[in-house]
């Protein structure tokens, strides 16, 4: 098939460019600080592009357009929440975190609370979080590739794993920074260019074939459409529709014509084929807005939807700042105020990206309404170009969006892998460059094996739970560590154990149980509303209990984290620990008090 080859070509091109840029960017990586934090020399605009490139995973590239496509105005809060996480990061974390001089999250824990036990706990959480996130990345990469090119699912995941491993082994953070910055612009182009073209196609189109979005009716099929239901769906019918069906509906086998009455809900089983005549109103999955009026109007679901939105804002605002692969990029800034500038740029880049997703969402509602029937809203970005332009140019645009989607998998996976490898190499191994490379290979081996062995783990849900785990462990640690003097190692440990424990327990429950309805279940499936406050509270409470063990150097650490950069209190712990062979000390006598301790410890080791 023609389209498959085009899309496959786009994906292979994205992969080849990624490796090429990675090799180019990593050619100067020599020392451990290069591999861990890119020598802390990344300028704000490049760093912001890298952060945005890493953050805009497939969940953003495909998911945001899909969410707005199905949920309409209510779905607008999702991209808002995803971007808002960076505002919270800017306000509460960015500059102090960089000024702490730490190079990983566990290192921050030790720098702030001088506890080796807490450091080890944080190491375990980073590795767990990283793998938890990597498995669904590999899985959905495979699934996406197999859906649109016919390549077997395991091959896509394996290709992503191998590509990112090559890049990270070759150049560490230095290589990955350039790769991710490049991938941000690739993704932006892959979304913005088709969005522009398709918007003009829409303006020049004969509007009579399509039902306008402002009509208070469900979307309609413009021509006779055959829909193959690949996973079982529940459809809400808001306008009566006559169709032909072959397969099984509501548990009974059907073959031939059928009329669905308005206001009914139909359960369509896997493998059923539905044929809708031209002009038929589109029945949609029960999670989507049924007609265009409720699509355009926010909160058409009433108060339960308000709760859902609040829960979402809660999770994204606190979850983003706990993600180790996002945090690790903040250590690459030269100093605290450039960390702030970086975050501001990220907000611009991420926000600008989501605007194009909205164009895709609106056009998909007009041109690919059949996705409302199958519930595959994530495919909207990939299918829209060829649905609107049935010629070689449409195929080319489709190949471009496929390449962008693949870049999304690659950049997020490489960020996760760098953060896992950085922590493993410095906390489990001695932290030489060789150890970093070893840790990278080990760090990618475990999740790819998991992804290949358990292909049926719920990918979408596991990402939400991982975000929740980040929000209930690292977020309280960072916020209280930066702003609260009374934090003790015991309090921090108990907080992480409480928050993490609640999330892990609810995950086990979700995996074990089969029922998916009721508010208890929905709370358990999204435990952030409970686990995050609980973690904050227990961190505070147990710190109060153990107030005697407040670290002795807390005043000094607070000064270092909050004092302006030009006073020069920041001590880069990676340089102290691993040295920086790329910059030989020119004149040792010039090394004065701020770096004296680091220099002395380095001498001692020699």
């Amino acid at each position, binding site marked *: 098939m023609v389209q498959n080859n085009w899309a496959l070509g786009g994906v292979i091109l994205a992969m080849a460019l990624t490796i090429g840029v990675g090799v180019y960017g990593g050619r100067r990586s020599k020392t451990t600080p290069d591999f861990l934090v890119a*020598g802390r*020399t990344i300028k704000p605009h490049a760093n912001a592009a890298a952060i945005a490139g890493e953050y805009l995973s497939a969940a953003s590239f495909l998911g945001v357009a899909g969410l707005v496509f199905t949920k309409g*105005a209510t779905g*607008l*809060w999702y*991209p*808002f929440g995803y*971007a*808002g996480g960076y*505002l919270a990061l*800017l*306000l509460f974390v960015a500059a102090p975190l960089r000024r702490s001089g730490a190079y990983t999250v566990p290192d921050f824990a030790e720098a702030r609370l001088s506890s080796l036990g807490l450091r080890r706990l944080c190491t375990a959480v980073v590795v767990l979080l990283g793998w938890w996130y990597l498995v669904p990345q590999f899985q959905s990469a495979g699934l996406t590739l197999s859906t649109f090119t016919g390549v077997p699912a395991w091959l896509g995941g394996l290709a992503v794993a191998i590509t990112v491993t090559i890049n990270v082994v070759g150049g560490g953070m230095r290589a990955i920074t350039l790769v991710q910055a490049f991938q941000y612009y690739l993704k932006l182009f892959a979304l913005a260019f088709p969005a522009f073209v398709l918007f003009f196609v829409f303006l020049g189109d004969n509007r009579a074939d399509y039902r306008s979005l402002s009509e208070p009716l469900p979307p309609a099929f413009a021509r006779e459409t055959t829909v193959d239901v690949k996973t079982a769906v529940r459809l809400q019918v808001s306008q009566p529709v006559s169709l032909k069906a072959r397969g099984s509906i509501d548990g009974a086998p059907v073959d031939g014509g059928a009329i669905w009455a308005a206001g009914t809900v139909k359960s369509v089983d896997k493998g059923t084929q539905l044929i809708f005549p031209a002009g038929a109103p589109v029945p949609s999955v029960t999670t989507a807005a049924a007609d265009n009026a409720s699509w*355009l*109007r*926010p*909160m058409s679901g*009433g108060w339960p*939807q*308000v709760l859902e*939105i*609040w829960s979402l*804002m809660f999770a994204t*605002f606190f979850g983003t700042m706990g993600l180790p692969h996002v945090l690790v990029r903040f250590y690459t800034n*030269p*100093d605290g*105020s*450039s960390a*702030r*500038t970086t975050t*501001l740029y990220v*907000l*611009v880049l991420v*926000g*600008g990206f*989501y*605007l194009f997703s*909205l164009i895709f969402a609106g056009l998909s509602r007009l041109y690919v309404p059949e996705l409302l029937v199958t519930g595959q809203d994530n495919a909207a970005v990939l299918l829209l170009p060829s649905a609107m332009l049935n010629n070689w140019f449409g195929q080319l645009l489709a190949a471009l969006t496929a390449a962008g989607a693949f870049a999304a998998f690659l950049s997020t996976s490489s960020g996760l892998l760098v953060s896992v490898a950085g922590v493993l190499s410095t906390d489990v191994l001695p932290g030489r460059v060789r150890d970093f490379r070893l840790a990278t290979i080990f760090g990618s081996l475990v999740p790819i094996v998991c992804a290949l062995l358990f292909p049926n783990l719920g990918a979408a849900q596991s990402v939400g739970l991982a975000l929740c785990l980040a929000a209930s462990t690292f977020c309280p640690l960072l916020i209280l560590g930066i*702003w609260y003097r009374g934090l003790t190692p015991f309090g921090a440990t108990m907080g992480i154990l409480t928050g993490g424990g609640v999330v892990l327990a609810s995950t086990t429950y979700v995996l074990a149980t089969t029922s998916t309805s009721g508010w208890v279940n929905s709370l358990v499936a999204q435990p952030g509303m409970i686990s995050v406050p609980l973690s904050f509270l227990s961190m505070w409470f147990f710190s109060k209990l153990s107030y005697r063990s407040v670290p002795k150097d807390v*005043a*000094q650490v*607070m*000064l270092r984290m*909050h*004092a*302006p*950069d*030009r*006073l*020069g*209190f920041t001590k880069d712990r990676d340089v102290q620990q691993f040295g920086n062979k*790329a*910059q*030989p000390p*020119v*004149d040792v006598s*010039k090394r*004065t*008090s*701020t*770096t004296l301790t680091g220099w002395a410890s380095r001498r001692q080791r020699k």
Partner: protein
Amino acid sequence: MSFPHGQDPLDGLGPGAQEHTRNGQDGHEDSAEDEPTYPLRGKRRVKVVLAERRGARRILRPMAQLEGQDTPIAESVVKELVRRQLKIAIALAGLVLGLYAGLPVLFVMVPEIGEAVIFGIRLPWLLVGGLAYPFMVAVGMVYNRAVERNEAKFANQYTGMVED
């Protein structure tokens, strides 16, 4: 400040560079961004890092004062800075969260607002889908300016205090 790197310290230019930076106050942020250069056989190019050195020179005494003994005055100045910064952060976070968590309530209670049209765009789409991003960037800019001002104030207080 772009610093002339690649100088050979054996020429005696290294110390000269040190003199040069003592005059300039700004540009501290930029100097660390220079690409490291490597000593090569024959043609020796050595990167001279100045930012840290200058900072270190300037704060020699404050560091000694604060790190050596706990001076209650210095301590209280730091505490005040932290409190001020946190206040700004909480106020701005509260503003954004309050607005955008409040909008859903408004749209449920007064559905007509959700159907208002401004510039041909439905109000919620304009507010949440479009204006939310420039708004957040503006809040971030306000924050950056406010905290930098606090930090400058702190630096003045601090150095003044130490030089007394």
